[in-house]
């Protein structure tokens, strides 16, 4: 190939990758919903769980605390912040304890008689009105007169206050300066419900930014501090930490690998060429995921790039075998069967995740398989013509020669391998502790201090529990509301018995139409009401005629159609009801949020009384889901393991060679699992992925060691290649193992341990017999 054609090939390759990369970049939508990495729901119940985990009001709830030296300033800021957030599209609902009297729009004022429970137990007759008016006279004689007086002509029964009181949380924090404060009176407290689901870090990030902006504008004092807690705030925090750490680790990785490759090959062109298959793999993988799934999850990206990092090994094998007088094209032909076996078997292992039933893992699978295949093929067909002739030969290294001879002298303790395998299996089989971690939260744990702060705020605010939730299902909104209303007295009993701190349910805000119509029917006709009022007024010092606005409002209420969920659009009730009463897939779901659950059994009994009502224990349910899903993944992996062995068998066509190639990775997997178990580490899905990655690496090492012919020069070149590969991989994953984030640490430690174990075992168990003829 002429220099010109080589240049053309290089340019065409880079251009193709660049253009594909540009297209991918323009069309790729990056998703952040963490539920993509949770099992996809199979049953109605499972779907409900996943919906609630991410979308239930408790998961959207942010608990806010404003603190500063001056409580009055904190209160003023709380008010300003609440009113700013109420108009912010990122938030659905904001509460800070401020009276909702002014929040009720004029159009809904007359509805107070249909929404408030007063008419359920008393009629608007002369007796009731007289008792109410007598109370009002006393109110006027009390210090509350100032703010009640202006309401009286329109609302002498203070129905609006009754309604506003009924909407207040059962247990609310103390009010200072008209807003919620903690018991110590130092921090103004607020609750804000975000529009974005709790497990959507991107949406939560936007909400957090909007919150911060609103706070900066609202603060009346520079010394005030805002704290936000809750699932959404935590997901933003954890995502930031992950991003920061991966960025930092990534930069160190790149520097380390560049140094390593420069030491190994002392050639800049080789360094650059070595990156081309990897970059092609990444772009091709993204394009494949984008085409098949439409979006790619942020975790898929991070994970996928970690996994296809293996592709960096492919050109390394080619480069290490380069020496004077050898054309890379003929070299690659000799390496290809081994390389192809490695690529094919690794791809098969990752294919298992395509059938895992977890959409995020299926994305990872498509990305990795496509990427590795592309990296393998480009290394085979595009790279060789571009590789410059090497003036150096790894086989000339005296150091490597000595190393290889020393290794050749090592025993080949096959029996030890068998013994270790039996010991590991026996240990794992006999250990009583569970092998697996089912808690999703354990993977991205929030710092303990923040969790303690969160539960303290939750207690102060009486905010709903993020774990338990009652779900009511029905074919329409009215039947759900009816069931919710029926549950209410039973829940109240639980609160009175101290088994529950509080609850919230949709019928508190929106009674069923039937109830509203019943109340409307109970409203007296104008003449009747006027007569009753006149009779009641006789015994009071109120002036005659001042209650005309009241008479007009009652008459208006008598003409009102009952409110349904759709009629609330635009009112503050819309968001309150909207987060507790939802239309989903042609049926309606009502949520009863629970605060301070102390007796789960009592709630279970309550739920069991009605077939349409379910008590969700989100933690338990998601753990069950994870465990069930993992079984499926393990089955998929078992099948792919069989396929993998078949591929290796077809490639090597010799049982003893197959055994030697597979022994290191099989043994490594067992040893790592046993070691983790012994050190108290529970295995997660991420360990599983890392184990597959480590096994793939082990298979590559073993294949190349096994492939090395009797030629001592080839053996040294193979050793050189495997050392460079394993060192670069070890560097990347050992750094990952230092991460403070359990997910990253799990992958890092697993793969780093796998690399070491695979390398050592491949040397001990796989090196060709030819080199060990001198043994014993």
């Amino acid at each position, binding site marked *: 190939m002429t220099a010109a054609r080589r240049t053309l090939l290089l340019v065409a390759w880079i251009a193709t990758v660049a253009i594909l990369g540009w297209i991918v970049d323009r069309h790729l939508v990056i998703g952040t919903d963490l539920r993509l990495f949770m099992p996809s729901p199979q049953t109605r119940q499972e779907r409900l769980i996943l919906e609630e985990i991410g979308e239930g009001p408790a998961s959207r709830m942010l608990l806010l605390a404003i603190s500063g030296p001056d409580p009055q300033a904190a*209160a003023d800021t709380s008010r300003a912040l609440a009113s700013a957030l109420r108009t912010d599209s990122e938030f659905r609902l904001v509460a800070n304890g401020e*009276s909702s009297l002014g929040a009720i729009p004029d159009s809904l004022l007359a509805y107070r008689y249909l929404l408030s429970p007063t008419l359920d137990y008393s009629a608007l007759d002369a007796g009731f009105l007289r008792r109410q008016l007598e*109370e009002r*006279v*006393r109110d*006027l*004689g*009390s*210090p*509350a*007169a*100032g*703010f009640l*007086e202006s309401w*009286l*002509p329109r609302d002498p029964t203070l129905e609006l206050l009754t309604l506003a009181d009924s909407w207040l949380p059962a247990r609310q924090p*103390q*009010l*200072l*300066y*008209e807003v919620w404060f903690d018991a110590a*009176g130092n921090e103004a407290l607020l609750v804000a419900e975000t529009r974005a689901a709790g497990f959507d870090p991107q949406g939560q990030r936007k909400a957090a930014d909007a919150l911060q902006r609103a706070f900066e504008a609202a603060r009346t004092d520079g010394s005030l501090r805002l704290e936000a807690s809750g699932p959404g705030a935590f997901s933003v925090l954890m995502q930031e930490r992950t991003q920061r750490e991966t960025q930092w680790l990534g930069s160190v990785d790149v520097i380390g690998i560049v140094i390593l490759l420069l030491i190994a090959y002392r050639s800049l062109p080789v360094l650059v060429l070595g990156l081309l298959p990897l970059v092609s793999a990444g772009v091709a993988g993204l394009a494949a995921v984008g085409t098949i799934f439409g979006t790619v999850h942020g975790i898929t990206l991070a994970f996928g790039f970690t996994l296809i990092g293996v592709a960096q090994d492919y050109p390394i094998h080619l480069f290490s075998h380069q020496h004077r007088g050898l054309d890379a094209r003929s070299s690659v032909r000799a390496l290809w069967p081994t390389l192809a076996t490695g690529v094919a078997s690794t791809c098969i292992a990752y294919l298992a995740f395509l059938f895992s039933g977890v959409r995020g893992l299926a994305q990872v699978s498509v990305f990795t398989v496509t990427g590795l295949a592309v990296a393998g093929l480009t290394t085979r067909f595009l790279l060789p013509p571009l590789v410059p002739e090497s003036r150096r030969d790894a086989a000339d290294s005296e150091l490597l020669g000595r190393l290889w001879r020393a290794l050749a002298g090592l025993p080949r303790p096959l029996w030890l391998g068998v013994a270790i395998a039996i010991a590991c299996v026996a240990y794992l089989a006999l250990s009583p502790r569970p092998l697996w971690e089912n808690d999703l939260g354990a993977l991205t744990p929030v710092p303990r201090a923040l969790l303690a702060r969160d539960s303290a705020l939750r207690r102060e605010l009486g905010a709903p529990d993020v774990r338990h939730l009652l779900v009511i299902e029905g074919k329409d909104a009215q039947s759900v509301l009816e069931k919710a209303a029926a549950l209410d007295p039973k829940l109240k009993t639980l609160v009175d018995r101290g088994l529950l701190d509080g609850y919230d349910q949709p019928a508190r805000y929106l009674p069923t139409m039937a109830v509203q119509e019943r109340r409307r029917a109970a409203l007296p006709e104008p003449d009747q009401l006027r007569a009753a009022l006149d009779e009641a007024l006789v015994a009071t*010092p*109120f*002036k005659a005629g*001042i209650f005309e606005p009241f008479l007009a409002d009652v008459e208006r209420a008598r003409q009102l159609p009952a409110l349904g969920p759709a009629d609330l659009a635009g009112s503050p009730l819309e968001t309150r009801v909207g987060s507790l009463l939802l239309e989903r897939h042609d049926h309606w779901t009502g949520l009863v949020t629970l605060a301070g659950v102390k007796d789960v059994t009592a709630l279970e009994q309550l739920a069991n009384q009605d077939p349409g009502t379910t008590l969700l224990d989100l933690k338990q349910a998601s753990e069950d889901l994870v465990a069930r899903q993992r079984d499926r993944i393990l089955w998929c992996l078992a099948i792919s393991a069989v396929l993998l062995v078949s591929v290796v068998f077809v490639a090597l066509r010799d049982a003893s060679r197959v055994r030697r190639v597979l022994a290191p990775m099989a043994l490594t997997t067992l040893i790592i699992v046993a070691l983790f178990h012994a050190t108290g580490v529970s295995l997660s899905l991420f360990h599983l992925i890392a184990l597959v990655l480590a096994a793939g690496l082990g298979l590559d090492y073993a294949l190349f060691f096994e492939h090395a012919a009797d030629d001592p020069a080839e053996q040294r070149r193979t050793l050189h290649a495997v050392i460079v590969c394993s060192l670069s991989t070890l560097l990347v994953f050992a750094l990952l193992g230092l991460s403070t984030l359990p997910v990253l640490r799990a992958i890092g430690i697993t793969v780093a341990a796998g690399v070491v174990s695979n390398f050592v075992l491949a040397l001990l168990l796989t090196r060709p017999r030819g080199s060990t003829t001198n043994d014993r």
Partner: protein
Amino acid sequence: MIGLTLAAAPLHAADPDVDALLASLARPAPDSTSFVEVRYSSLLETPIVVSGRLEHREDGTLLRRVETPYEEVTELRGENVLVQRAGSKPRRFSLDRAPELRGMLASFGAILKGDRPMLDRHFVVTAKGDEARWEITLTPRDDKLKRRLSAIVVDGAENRAKCFTLEEPDGDASLMALGVAGPADLPAALERPTLRDWCTGDTRQ
């Protein structure tokens, strides 16, 4: 002590020394006094009259106990107000919702403590009369307060405050007579001018 202060203060018929007056009025907690409150409202034909005791506790809490014609206790602690009345639900609210009450409390507290700076912070303070019969008028400075309260007038004689009158912009008012056991001690006719005269009149019977 009070006598000394008063003696040292230059008394002027048209302009009594407010500082000296305040110092003489100071009543350290705990303190308790009976009151009769008369409230005039545009909603009412006849004013409401209640009587009871005001208690000022060491922790700064102010209790307003209504004893007749019904029982009611209002607890004013810090920013929070709690009104409890037999047979009805306790009502809680904060001073932010009742600015006139905050103004009333500020003036009341400042007078009990002899705290002139606190009075000045919230009100423009003017005084007239002499040592024997004086009148302090407090006009709010804050706009929010002004909307709910035009003025507080404190009438007194010597070292004793006799009446606190809250005048509201809409013409409503409430008048609290201190050290009076019951409505029987007030004039029989409770029209405002009659009561005003009673407040500004000489009570040393």
